[in-house]
Structures are given as C-alpha cells and as structure tokens.
C-alpha cells in the first residue's frame, strides 16, 4: 500500500524550496523502492516551518519542517514514512498548538486537501453549501447570508447580505458575480492561500452567489503577481465544469453558471471595486463615482455582486452549517472568523483564522512569537498600506472592526505587519504618500496631487529645523484632512492613516536633521 506524503505547492512554500523537496522525496522513494504518493497540498500557514512535509499514518498526519532538500536523506533514514523521530519532527499536525488553537472555518481545508482533486474537496465537506443552496430560493440564500452577519473581508467590511439583496432586487436581463482577487495590500496573502490551497471553495461560493441573485456569469479578477493561483484556479474550473458544477445546467438545477479568470496588470487601485470593473471592461482602472452602486449598475452596466475572495469562500460554510453557526463566532458587530495574516518581522509568521475578539497582542506575541530580529517591537501596521501604524501601547486592542475604527485604524483585509525598533517612522510615513502617488488612478485631485505634496512636505520636515517643522507639520495634517475628506475612494481617503498615526505616535522620528545635528 502506498504511503501519502504531502509537500505544499503553495507559492510561499515554493519560494523556500518546496519543489526541490518534493523531487528529493520522490527520488528517495524510488531509490528505496518504497511506494510513496506525493500530494501537493496548500500551506497550513505555518510559514516559519515551510516547506512543511506531512506523512499520512494510521494515527493521522505527522509533520516535519522546515525541510530542506538536504534533509530528505536523513528523513528516510529516520523512517519518517512511519512517523519516525527526527530533529525536524513536529508531531501530529493537528496537535501543533499554533494550529490547534485556531478556529478554521474558511480555511478548514487549506493545507489539508489536494487542491487539484474535486473528489478530495467533496470528501472534506465540499459542495455541501451548494447542495443546500440548490434547495433554497434566491431570497432565502440572501437572507441566510444577511443573518450570518458576514461583512466584506476585502477591507471595507460592508455587510455582504445587503450587497446581495440589492443585486437580487435589481431587475435586469443579465447579472454578474465578480470576485476581487486583486489582493494588493502588502502584508496580506489569505486570498492567495485560498486560491492555491482550496480553489473549489471559491468556485462554490461564487456559484451560490450566482444562484442567489440570478447571475449566470462570474469573473475572477486575479492579480498578475499570482501565477500559481492562476494555475490552481484554471485547473479547478476545468474539473468543476467536467463534473457539472459549472456550465449551462449547474448540477441539474436548470440554471447556468460559468466562470472565467481575468488577469490584472499590476495596478493597486484595481482592488477598489469600481476601478476593478473598469479594468474588466477593458479600460484604465479609474474609480467610478458612486452611486450608482455596482449592485445596481456594475459590470457592463448590469447589476453585479462584487466580493473579495475570502468573503465568497466563507459563503459555503454559512449555507452548509447555517447562519447561526457562523454568527455565533465573533463579537459585537464583527461576526464569524477573520483569517489574519502575520507578516513582517515576526518569529512565527503565518495564517491565523480566529473568531473576532482576540487582541492584537495575542496575535503578535502568542502566535507571532515576537520579532524575528529579537529586538523590541515598535509598530504594527494593520490593514495594508492604508492602515494605521499602531504603537506597542495599543497592542491590547481587540480584533474587531469597530474597535479599530475607534483608535483611528482599520482591520482591512487582516494583514498584520510587525516592525522592530530599527524602523524609521518618518520614512514609513513618506513611503505611504509615495505609494499613494505611484498608485493613484489620477481621477481626483486630493489623491493625485495631495500624495505628491505629502512626500515633499515630509521631506521638508525631516530636513528642516524645529520652527520649520511646526509649520510643515500643520501643513501636512491639513493636507491629510483634505485627502481624508475629499478623495473619491479609499486610496486617497485612507493613505493619511499611516501618515497621521506615525506623526501621532512616533513624533520623535520627525525631528529635522537640522535639529538633530545641532543637539
């Protein structure tokens, strides 16, 4: 009987040499004439242990990591195929504390199943949400989503049920489902992990969305920087089509749903939903004025549900297990779970899916294990390049949309980037403005011009003396207010968050060089 060994094909694991590890294991098995089946799974999200190899045993899966190609020979010698002891042995995967304490609903199958196998997906509870949805009316599906309390996981946190309801109620000959897979926020990678590790769950979520609102065509707008996700999605779409989960008659229900992957072209702004629609239509990714809402007049002028990958991938669980099951996780108005992505300067970076309500401290200290450099933590940027820099003194803030809004930040897409005390916060503030200038679509003046002026003012502050600094800081704060209040979309409207938070919490970094040399 063959022994199954799992070696991730996740892009992050590949970036650390997983391909060579898989090849070495296959070669080692041939050499020893052992019957080994290598499955290329997604990542479990314990990136400091990648490439993490797992072996299926009678008592469940056991893990080894981080495995380099050079370790493979010794793994065979230690009889890792039968859970043999080895310096890299991590024990049963499910017992790893970092993983065991998580509440994985959306990520339940990521790293567990073979993302290329529809059978594996079904064996692990896949397509139960769709089976339930096929017995419901569109209005009932939308009601279930509303009752679950699911809010958009892309960053804006808009209630998904309301979006779907608006689209359901819109009358049109054609409607669309669009998946925003333009995961451009730095420090985030949960969409990528889903698409690479469990692509069928996204397909299932989009199919349910199509049935709910009466849309027959879906697009996945995928960033060009994600070639591995593209391959996984295309393979999964082909399998789903072959098994009747996509096509003219979804599982014999008489309704069509087709899915297409469209590749973006490297513009951050296309993660903003109206820019994304412009891009899908073949134009410059410039923001549209709202109203009309995309749910009423979206892609090609038709009613469109546009949601982020994690949002859509959360739908099957809600339909399968019920709205109450999902809503019972979480706190306040933040219901369910959030896949948080630990990044930057941490000992144990990776994917942590937990119900809302745990604190930032638990994330960066308990899961993250503190800084990788061993130096004191100085700032945490939550929510991508437009998220606030949070000082160590605010680490007890709970992971909750409203709690973050209260401290002038946002959860966004759940990215958590940690910096140690070597960070120069004035440089980070400047970078935020520079990034906004590079990525601005150019449609509104506060963002297009404001960001460039922002870079200039910060440069003057850093180069100047105390008197100049006072004047220029007032100017910078005023400019930030103009951008906050006057920009058309979140890029210009939130780029001031990292700038203002750096100014508020780390003013010492903005002392001009003129003063620093004087003192």
């Amino acid at each position: 009987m063959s022994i199954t060994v799992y070696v991730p094909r996740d892009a992050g694991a590949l970036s650390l040499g997983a391909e060579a590890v898989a090849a070495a294991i296959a070669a080692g098995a041939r050499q020893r004439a052992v019957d080994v089946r290598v499955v290329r799974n997604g990542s479990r999200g314990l990136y400091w242990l990648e490439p993490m190899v797992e072996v299926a045993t009678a008592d469940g899966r056991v893990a080894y990591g981080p495995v380099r190609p050079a370790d493979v020979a010794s793994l065979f010698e230690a009889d890792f195929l039968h859970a043999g002891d080895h310096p890299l042995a991590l024990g049963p995967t499910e017992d790893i504390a970092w993983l065991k304490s998580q509440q994985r609903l959306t990520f339940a199958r990521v790293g567990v199943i073979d993302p290329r196998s529809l059978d594996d997906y079904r064996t692990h509870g896949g397509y139960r949400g769709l089976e339930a949805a096929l017995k419901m009316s569109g209005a009932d599906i939308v009601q279930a989503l509303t009752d679950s309390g699911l809010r958009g996981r892309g960053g804006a946190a808009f209630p998904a049920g309301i979006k779907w309801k608006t689209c359901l109620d819109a009358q049109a000959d054609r409607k669309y489902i669009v998946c925003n897979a333009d995961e451009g926020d730095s420090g985030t990678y949960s969409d990528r992990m889903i698409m690479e590790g469990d692509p069928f769950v996204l397909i299932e979520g989009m199919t349910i969305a199509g049935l709910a609102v009466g849309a027959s065509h879906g697009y996945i707008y995928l960033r060009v920087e994600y070639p591995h996700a593209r391959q996984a999605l295309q393979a999964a779409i082909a399998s789903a089509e072959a098994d009747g989960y996509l096509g003219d008659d979804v599982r014999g229900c008489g309704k069509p749903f087709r899915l297409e992957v469209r590749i973006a072209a490297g513009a951050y702004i296309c993660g903003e939903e109206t820019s994304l629609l412009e891009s899908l239509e073949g134009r410059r990714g410039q923001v549209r004025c709202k109203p009309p809402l995309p749910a009423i007049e979206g892609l090609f002028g038709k009613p469109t549900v546009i949601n982020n990958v994690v949002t859509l991938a959360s739908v099957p669980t809600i339909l399968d297990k019920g709205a109450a099951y999902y809503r019972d996780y979480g706190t306040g108005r933040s219901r369910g779970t959030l896949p948080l992505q630990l990044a930057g300067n941490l000992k144990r970076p990776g994917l942590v899916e937990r119900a809302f309500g745990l604190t930032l401290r638990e994330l960066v200290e308990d899961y993250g294990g503190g800084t990788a450099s061993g130096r004191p933590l100085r700032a945490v940027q939550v929510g991508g390049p437009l998220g606030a820099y949070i000082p160590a003194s605010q680490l007890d803030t709970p992971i909750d949309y409203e709690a973050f809004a209260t401290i002038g930040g946002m959860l966004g897409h759940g990215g958590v980037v940690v910096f140690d005390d070597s960070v120069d916060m004035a440089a980070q503030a400047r970078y935020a403005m520079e990034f906004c200038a590079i990525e601005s679509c150019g449609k509104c003046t506060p963002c297009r011009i404001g960001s460039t002026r922002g870079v200039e003012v910060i440069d003057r502050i850093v180069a100047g003396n105390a008197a100049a600094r006072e004047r220029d800081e007032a100017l910078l704060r005023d400019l930030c207010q103009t951008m906050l209040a006057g920009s058309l979309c979140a890029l210009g409207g939130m780029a001031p968050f990292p700038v203002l938070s750096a100014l508020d919490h780390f003013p010492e970094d903005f002392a001009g060089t003129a003063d620093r040399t004087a003192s």
Partner: protein
Amino acid sequence: MKRAANAASLPDIPENVRTAVLTVTARLKDQPGALLPVLHGVQAALGCIPEASVPLIARELNLSRADVHGVISFYHYFRSQPAGRRVIYLCRAESCQAMGAGALEKHVKQRLGVDFHGTTADGAFTLEPVYCLGNCACSPAMMVDDELQGRLTPAGFDAWLAAEKTVAGTT
C-alpha cells in the same frame, strides 16, 4: 469594406508584430472587455506592446488609438519597450521593508548596475519594483518570471545571480 479602408490608413507595421497582434485578436477580440486579455496576449508573444502595434490593436477592437495607449500606459505591468531576458520583480512593500528589503534593494541595484525600470547593459536583466507579491510571511521576496523567492538576503541574491549567469553561459 470599412476594414479595407482602415487598413490603408495604418502605418507600416513590422510583419512579426502584425502577425502576433492578429493571432491574438482573432482569438480574443469577441469577448466582452477584450482589451486587457489582448494586451496580455501581445506582450506574451512579443515581450512588450510596441508603439507600432497600437493602431492595429485599436482597429481590431474598434477602439481609438488614444484608448489603447491610455490603457497600456496606465498599468505598470504593460511595457512598450522590450525588457531584458529576465525581469526581476523586487518587492518594496512594508512587510519586506520590515525584514530588510531596503538594504536588499540597494544591493541588487548596485550588483546589477541599474535602477528600477532599468535593463542591464548586456540585456540580461530588467529590474522592476513590485508592491507586494503575497509572500509576506517569507519576506523579503522577489519574483523572476513565475519563480518566487522568499527570505531573500543579499548573499542569496548573489547566489541566484551566479546560477543564472552559469545557465545563461551554457546555453
């Protein structure tokens, strides 16, 4: 009829460009919102979207040249000039910054002798900045073609570069 009249007004287009564009447009032009897929197709075939191809793309998709030019120039990924044989995308975003991307960036620029958007004198490498490769748990990151590297150090880059040059030298 209309097409013949338009064709007469098209400036001279190198034959390889004409063939590449027409092959791509014949396949993709009838899908809704075809311009981005078409531009990806042309860039994949020719390595860039040369100025000379713009009138033909515009004609095939029934767009104005200004529309097509506007889209090409908007997106960072599309290029009008050929790149080096390999394009190095080096991440500049926050997670990589927190793990030493700034020093890595200086090292890479100095090693290749180019700034961002530049191509080495021998035409081997083009260096491009990228704002997140989604490999933030393994920062700093770099992507060359579809090959992603994580936890890249200056020494790691040098080792990669040496291996690249060996491969290039043997082919």
